């Protein structure tokens, strides 16, 4: 029974793609689809995906992992494959994806109800489901790149969803270009790895299949020197850094908050950004080869966690706080992977995804952009507070995870302190929000929205009891202190919404401004230099001067050398004319001219008809 799910998963995964194409073609041809139909098509895809991925997950437990492959590009020995790899990690992530996306689509059907471009939104949702699934079920590194790039494109399209808003469209371009830098580095890593396999190993490794990845890693390590290997790893990891919004590429996640709130919940907190962690887990055999690389991953993750938590404390906007918090938590996950605790990373990936989705959605409950005129006034709904408890690690599944992090990092005192600091700040920024903004009085009828939020929260709450070993350890107490501090400070001092510590933190240490002002301006200057060079090449008269020089030379030769015989003849004739005084010299000149002309014509005719004459004579040979 469960094999059926694993074997037919591929058709289920292709369904969103066809749905997207159908919606797209329908719109281009001007077919009007009703909103319930669009919602139905999309929800059906996600629901089916959820059922099949859970079935396949069961199959992994019963029958083990399996693969379904087909060739994509085949050029002699060189082969790139696409397919569906069913194993534990991919099926867990896939189930999470479909679970979250099902309820977020349900939420969107109510939230985006008054959106005129409803069809476009749901088309993109389908495309996102497809490309994210492509990434997650990928049996090889090449397919991961394909999904990787596609989710980036969907993210770009959804950030710029309201294209008439100039600020949002600039955010979309910024986010896309930062993502593209990472994607290109990842592609560089992937093609280098393909090349190394192509040059030094048997053909089956060229596809970079994950089931052979231990061997692939050792081949790559054996045939590169230390420096090249680090460069290769860094290229691959740069993709992770951009997609998971790690320092210094975390700025795009702030821009991404221009997207509609359900999109922020789905793409920019729960699923797409977690792809970086997923890829790191997949590439762990390669990274393990070099100890420096693992240290770098841990350090980077922890630094991002610290940095982004600090930025989050001072944000004005609830969505910005949540975005920084996402970067910080992804940093924690990466650190866990780098530390070798993959199980914890996956657990936290799931838990964090659910909590963040719930937080964003409950923010959307009370701050719907379609029903509010003033976006400056933000309110908090009750479900947000429950989510805050889970995120800070005071209760529910968040508590379990934080506890496990503490146990993992315990051997290293430096990391332990850093982690406790991060959880302290996490409690501070999330409870600061809860105190800062008033509770909303929701009068709108939005049953699907409420349902989705509470489903996520229920899962978070229920899963607390499924993970054993939750003790009230150091992370709990530190979070507790953090929460108290935040509440006391906020209520007592009533500090303004424009940040407490300093303006520098609020602006994210001006990194974004650095990119958008300095780097952008430098790039513009740089290109304008090249543009000037191009105009110079285009207007270049050098060729013209050379040509004119040649013409002058030819003129000189013509005058002084070729006319020499003519001049001589003239001289001779003059001499002769003096000798023969009454001869009709003028007539002789005329005759000579005519004669030369006729001879010239005959000669050129012969030259022109050369081939014809020779052919008619039967050829040379």
């Amino acid at each position, binding site marked *: 029974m469960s094999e059926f799910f694993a074997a037919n998963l591929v058709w289920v995964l292709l369904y969103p793609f066809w749905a997207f194409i159908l919606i797209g073609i329908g719109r281009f041809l001007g077919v009007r689809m009703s909103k319930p139909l669009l919602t139905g098509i999309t929800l059906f895809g996600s629901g089916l995906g959820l059922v099949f991925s859970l079935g396949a997950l069961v199959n992994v437990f019963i029958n083990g992992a399996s693969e379904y492959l087909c060739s994509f590009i085949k050029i002699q020995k060189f082969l790139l494959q696409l397919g569906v790899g069913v194993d534990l990690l991919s099926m867990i992530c896939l189930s999470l994806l479909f679970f979250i996306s099902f309820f977020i689509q349900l939420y969107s059907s109510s939230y985006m109800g008054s959106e005129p471009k409803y069809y476009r939104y749901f088309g993109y949702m389908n495309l996102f489901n497809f490309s994210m699934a492509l990434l997650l079920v990928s049996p090889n590194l090449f397919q991961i790149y394909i999904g990787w790039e596609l989710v980036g494109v969907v993210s770009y399209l959804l950030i710029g969803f309201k294209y008439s808003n100039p600020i949002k469209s600039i955010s979309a371009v910024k986010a896309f270009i930062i993502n*593209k*830098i990472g994607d290109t580095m990842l*592609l*560089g890593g992937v093609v280098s790895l393909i090349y190394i396999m*192509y040059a030094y190993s048997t053909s089956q490794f060229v596809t970079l299949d994950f089931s052979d990845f231990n061997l692939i890693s050792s081949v790559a390590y054996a045939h590169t020197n230390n420096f090249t290997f680090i460069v290769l790893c860094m290229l691959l990891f740069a993709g992770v850094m951009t997609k998971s919004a790690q320092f210094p590429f975390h700025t795009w996640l702030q821009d991404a908050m221009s997207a509609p709130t359900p999109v922020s919940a789905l793409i920019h907190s729960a699923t797409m950004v977690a792809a970086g962690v997923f890829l790191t887990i997949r590439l762990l055999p390669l990274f393990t080869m070099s100890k420096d690389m693992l240290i770098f991953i841990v350090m980077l993750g922890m630094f991002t966690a610290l940095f982004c938590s600090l930025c989050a404390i001072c944000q004005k906007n609830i969505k910005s706080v949540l975005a920084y918090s996402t970067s910080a938590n992804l940093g924690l996950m990466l650190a866990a992977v780098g530390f070798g605790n993959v199980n914890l990373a996956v657990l936290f990936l799931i838990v964090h995804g659910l909590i963040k989705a719930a937080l964003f959605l409950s923010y959307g409950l009370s701050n719907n952009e379609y029903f509010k005129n003033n976006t400056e006034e933000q309110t908090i709904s009750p479900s947000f507070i429950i989510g805050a408890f889970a995120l800070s690690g005071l209760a529910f599944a968040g508590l379990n995870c934080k506890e496990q992090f503490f146990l993992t990092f315990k051997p290293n005192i430096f990391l332990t302190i850093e982690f406790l600091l991060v959880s302290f700040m996490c409690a501070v920024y999330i409870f600061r929000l809860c105190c800062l903004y008033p509770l909303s009085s929701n009068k709108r009828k939005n049953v699907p929205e409420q349902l989705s939020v509470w489903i996520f929260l229920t899962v978070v709450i229920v899963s607390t009891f499924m993970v054993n070993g939750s003790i009230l350890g150091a992370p709990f107490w530190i979070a507790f202190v953090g929460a108290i501090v935040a509440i006391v400070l906020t209520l007592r001092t009533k500090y303004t919404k424009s940040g407490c510590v300093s303006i520098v933190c609020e602006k994210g240490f001006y990194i974004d401004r650095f990119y958008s002002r300095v780097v952008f301006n430098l790039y513009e200057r740089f290109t304008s230099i090249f543009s000037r060079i191009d105009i110079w090449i285009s207007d270049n008269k050098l060729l013209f001067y050379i040509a004119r020089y040649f013409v002058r030379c030819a003129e000189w030769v013509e005058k002084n050398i070729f006319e020499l015989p003519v001049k001589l003849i003239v001289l001779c004739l003059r001499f002769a004319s003096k000798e023969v005084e009454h001869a009709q010299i003028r007539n002789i000149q005329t005759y000579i001219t005519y004669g030369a002309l006729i001879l010239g014509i005959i000669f050129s005719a012969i030259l022109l008809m050369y*081939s014809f004459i020779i052919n008619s004579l039967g050829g040379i040979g």
Partner: protein
Amino acid sequence: MFLSNILSLPILIFLPLILGLVILLPIFSKNDIYIRRYAKVCFVIHLLYSLLFWMFYSNGYITLYAPDWIKPLGVKFGFAMDELSLLMTILTSLIFTLGAIASKLHIRYGQKYYYALLLFFETTILGIFNAADIFTFFLFWELELIPAYFLIGYWGEGANSRKSAMKFVLYTFLGSLFMLVGLIMLHYFSYLAANTLNGQISMYDLSKVGVGLQILISMLLLIGFGVKLPIVPIHSWLPDAHTDAATPISMILAGVLLKTGAYAIIRFNFQILPEAFQYLAPIVAAFALINIIYAALVAYSQTDIKRIVAYSSISNMGLILLGICAMNVIGLTGSIFHMIAHGLIAAGLFMVCGIVLLRCKERDINKLGGLAKSMPRLFGFATIIVLASIGVPALAGFVGEVITIIGALASELSDAIKFIGIFSLPVLILSSCYLLKFLHKGFYGEEESCKPSSDIANHEFVVLGIIVLLLIIFGCYPAAIINTIQNIFVTNGAVIW
């Protein structure tokens, strides 16, 4: 098979010319609407006919027509077709068909001569792609200048289109002087070495000729082909010609004409003179890298929308050149694939520019804006084509770019080409910078000065629809083309490749 018997190369090549001559007959009046319809039907018939070649093509050369031309020199008026010619022929007839459909609103006067010249233009380009003999090749290479000059110069949209047409002709002509010397040397020395007079491209055997001489010939030819490709220091005809020509002509120039340069490099430098090209390849690859990066940087600071697209063409042609320089099967496959993909992408981008120009009468990107609101369909098409151009997977551009770069990495010639392969990757970032700027400034934002009255018309919808559909099909199922490309290496023998 009955159908396979009607496939004839002379008909394939001269059909457009003959059909074009019919337009000049007095049965059509000067600005007749029937001329356009007739020409459209001609192009579609020709497209279907060339598709028949694809269907009934069996492996090996089709060399059917080779009467003597200049017998003492061993020159024949010969045509041959292998898979490479076949793919290029289909691309040509497709892009010309799309161009003819797109001409509806862009060509306001002199339709009679326009469509006749367009059909003549197709014949000359098909002649280049299918020539079996070097002198036949040269004939068509030069002949193509005549219709191109008039089409760019007399129906141009830009202010100084005649000047640009002249520039194009002069550049190409200067290049072909070098090329002619190269071709004559090639012919003469192969005669000296092998003592047989034969102008057929597939028959040249220069293994006995010294390598130094081969390199000289190869360089002379490269100058000629490099003008068409174009390689960077001699590229400046391209932005002018593409910008000033009418939109359908820009589509054809970028989609087909540039590919003749790449095709010729594959045919001559690669196939006839592989030994010399081995020495030249790293240098040419360096030029290709300059092409790729330089043009992408210049494109960013352009303000004219058509110029942005023109420079993106130069950048992409550099990538194609890089694939050829890799001198292995992967690189060559990638570059041939990218020739087709880029032909479609460039045609599509110029079409988008043309539609914007027609509606807004404005080509400065800073003065455009907010077009997405009034032209949502065009916005959708433009987005897909731009994404294809910056190498998003599941669209054709990605496959070409990735295979080409992997081919450059797998090159066994020298390490330089491998590094160039890696260093050409940032072009993906640079191209997304300038193309997203194009999309962002043109389509996003509040509606500004330009308020187009209508979204795209039906015939424009057909053109863009076909392009986008093909981009998606080739992107999702690249094997459709790659399998045909693979046969090239079988046809032309394993030794050369």
